[in-house]
């Protein structure tokens, strides 16, 4: 449980950090994902760049009809933000699922997303909210949609010299309802299968429906089948959509749950999340 030796660089500002990161470096903020990898020597960086204290990367701000969250904002800070809780109650709801009190005090939203654990709770929320991630490097910046960010287990669209600096949440349709349902693996607390849903209605008819999964496959993914709900009142169709959403997905198989059970749980989670999101939509 002792990492290989590495240089430690505590960045003074964002520019400093961007200059330092690149090949054979790892970025650390809360450390809850990275430190176990270091201790098991699964990650053996030459240099660790600490961005945990950079105020430039912290904070939750209103932007247009949406919000911007600094990547180094802790889970605790997400829970404490009344504005975020009002506009995106789903984020607070899901954040309560993440780790325990100590993890939430230190862990950051950007760190968790960049780590891209295929069973993490936050990625499917970013997918249904259609968030955009701001990536910066010393050469410049670019935006990548959350829906194009997660490439595989612990693999993202980020290049080695890029840093996730900001999560941008677009304005939501008025009165949209959101929900998350998951089944936790008893040891790790990560999702065996989980589903996030967003539904907007107008005059009793669904105008927008989004559904995303975590834990089920090698990466969190958005399920296009949810679109079938648009133009309907939902109800019985929800079960069909939940089943269709996981059809053909190659489900994970491990000692905790086989593919068949995982797929079944994902269907149940999808149905529960869609049903609750519909109930919450106004």
């Amino acid at each position, binding site marked *: *449980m*002792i990492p*290989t*030796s590495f240089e430690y660089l505590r960045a003074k500002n964002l520019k400093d950090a961007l200059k330092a990161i690149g090949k054979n470096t790892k970025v650390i903020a809360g450390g809850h994902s990275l430190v176990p990898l270091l201790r*098991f*020597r699964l990650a053996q960086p030459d240099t660790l760049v600490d961005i945990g204290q950079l105020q430039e990367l912290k904070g939750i701000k209103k932007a247009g009809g949406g919000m911007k969250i600094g990547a180094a904002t802790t889970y605790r800070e997400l829970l404490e933000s009344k504005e975020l809780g009002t506009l995106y109650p789903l984020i607070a709801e899901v954040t309560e699922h993440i780790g325990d009190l100590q993890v939430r005090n230190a862990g950051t939203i950007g760190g968790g997303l960049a780590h891209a654990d295929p069973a993490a709770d936050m990625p499917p929320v970013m997918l249904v909210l259609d968030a955009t991630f701001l990536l910066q490097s010393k050469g410049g910046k670019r935006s990548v949609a959350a829906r194009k960010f997660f490439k595989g287990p612990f693999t993202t669209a980020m290049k080695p010299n890029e840093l996730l600096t900001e999560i941008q949440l677009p304005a939501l349709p008025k009165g949209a309802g959101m929900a998350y349902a998951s*089944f936790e*693996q*008893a*040891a*790790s607390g990560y999702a065996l299968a989980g589903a996030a849903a967003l539904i907007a209605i107008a005059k009793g008819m669904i105008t927008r429906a989004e559904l995303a999964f975590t834990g089920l496959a090698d990466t969190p993914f958005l399920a296009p089948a949810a679109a079938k709900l648009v133009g309907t009142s939902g109800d019985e169709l929800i079960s069909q959509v939940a089943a269709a959403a996981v059809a053909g997905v190659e489900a994970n198989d491990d*000692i*905790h*749950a*086989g593919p*068949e*059970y995982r797929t*079944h*749980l994902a269907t*149940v989670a999808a149905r529960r999340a869609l049903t609750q999101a519909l109930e919450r939509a106004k």
Partner: protein
Amino acid sequence: MVVAESRAAARDALDLIDVDYEALDAVVDPEKATQKGAPELHKEVPGNVAFTWKVAGGDAAKAFAEAPVTVEQRIVQNRLLPTAMEPRAACASYNPGTGQLTCWVTSQNPHIHRFLLSVMTKLPEHRIRVIAPEVGGGFGSKIPGYPDEALVSFASMELGRPVKWTEDRSENYKVTIHGRDHVEYVALCGTKDGKITGLRTKVYAGLGGYASTAAPGIPTILHGLMYSGPYTIPNIEGTIYGVYTTTTPVDAYRGAGRPEATFLLERMIDLYARKIGLDPVEVRRMNLIPKDKFPYTVATGITYDSGNYQGALDKALQMFDYKKFRAEQAKARKDGRYLGVGVTTYCEICGLGPSQVAGAVGFGGGLYDSAIVRVYPTGVVRAYIGAKPHGQGEETTFAQILADEFGIPVESVEVVAGDTEATPQGWGTYGSRTTAVCGSAVKVAAQRVKDKAKKIAAHLLEANEADLEWKDGKFAVKGSPDKGKTFGELALMANVAWNMPPGVEPGLEATAFFDPSNFVYPFGTHICTVEVDVETGEVTILRYIAVDDCGPQINPMIVDGQVHGGVIQGLGEALQEMAVYDEDGQLLTGTMMDYAIPKASQMPKVETAHTVTPSPVNPLGVKGVGETGTIASVPTLVNAVCDALAPLGISHIDKPLTPARVWAAIQQARGGAK
């Protein structure tokens, strides 16, 4: 072995070693390991069967031939990882000048480790000092001798410097002993009206790759001898195979053999009750050993000390309205909800134990324990004990025994354990023995001290010893309490010795070695209710009630703490804990991310209550309570879940009852895919 100036350097050095391993064929399942064609681990052990042990009483063959009802079940006792809060550690310091080795070890039994170290290092035993400092839990995993303390001792002797080794959690999971790991074939027979007449078992008990220190005793004397449980089962026959597999050694883990025995028996009784259409509580009640039959010798040949099993059952049923629950259950089933109840009546063998029995069954050590009670001139007291509490609280419990005995504040007593240089020969803390055996040694030593104090009091009061009585913390002549001598006054006189009775030596201390005449047999009734979500297989515990009888309680809070911890640990075994190996012998549950010890948020409130039936085999009348929780709770939970799923035709699911397993059983019962 790598020895370095720092842990980090040692870890880096490990990466520089390249080992070419020749992979041998593996077999990880104890039943499969005995089958033809299985790879054999040791040349001298054909078929991997290290031993075959049999227990028999009555005539089981006849009972089964004649019984109108028989139930049979294959049961798997999932392999468990003890997961003491503190992993193991050892530090050795050899002094070449004096030839003395001091070894700090995370030990439940420092005197056993001293003996084993003497054998392994070839140093004379009196030149070895083992110190077990405050140890962060054990659950049995810190009983055995391990290579690690021998290796640091060897390294220190070679280098003439202290050498320390500490295990991390992953190493702890890989190399510290595991628990349980049985495959059992069990049959129970009886009459149509609920009288159990016979029990038969065939057990493949996994030992891992090598026999650990106490391993052979676990599935045999601590398991097979308890097949009668609290019941009058006249005919019993068990065959236990101790089997080597390509896995980490299996040894004593909280309960050690008795949880497996209680589980198989309680599971079979529920299957039997269901088959004959009787209520499982009534079947239990009609087979319990009557309270006026103690001491009672069961078919396996052991004699239970005392008991009132009906009393504990009645008390539990007073706390839980069984009839009302059955009515709620019936109503819920109509609404498509699945509620279930499990009721366990258990007894167990602990307070290890009579040394003669240890010898007779081939255990290499003794099982008595010891205490030195030393009184200082100012009347404060220290007890040096042979056992080694590591979280059980006997530092407090024993201080209470002495404070009560001497009429002094509990703060005036200190209990010292763990240093072989200070404490008398003892056998450690395990098998729920410490209070029953070592506590009794404390009590006997205290009585010896008090007897001497009484002689001094009689001398000072110029009275006959026979005329003195101990009252309100003083020895005084009966009828003249004002002129008494307190324990403190007598302690001072004994230690300054200016005015001692003729022929009485100065000083006030006594040593006692207590070897009990029998084991103790605590018992009780546990009740659990659950709801199962048949869509997902999730089990929710609604209520958990534990009524236990460990005789008189010296510290009720500690007793309740033991019950709470034990029950939760057992519910972990029943619901979510399982060590998994792949077919090549790789441990797949190597971290806490994959091995699910119970978390507070996952567990129910435990409602505790007690009955009090003293044991006649020790001066305190106490029975053990360290393991009753893990012994009783596992079948209670599993029986509740199987009861909930009875309408689906489900009679048995192997633990742990993870949602995945429960769901699979439901799918299978409904004729769907597995």
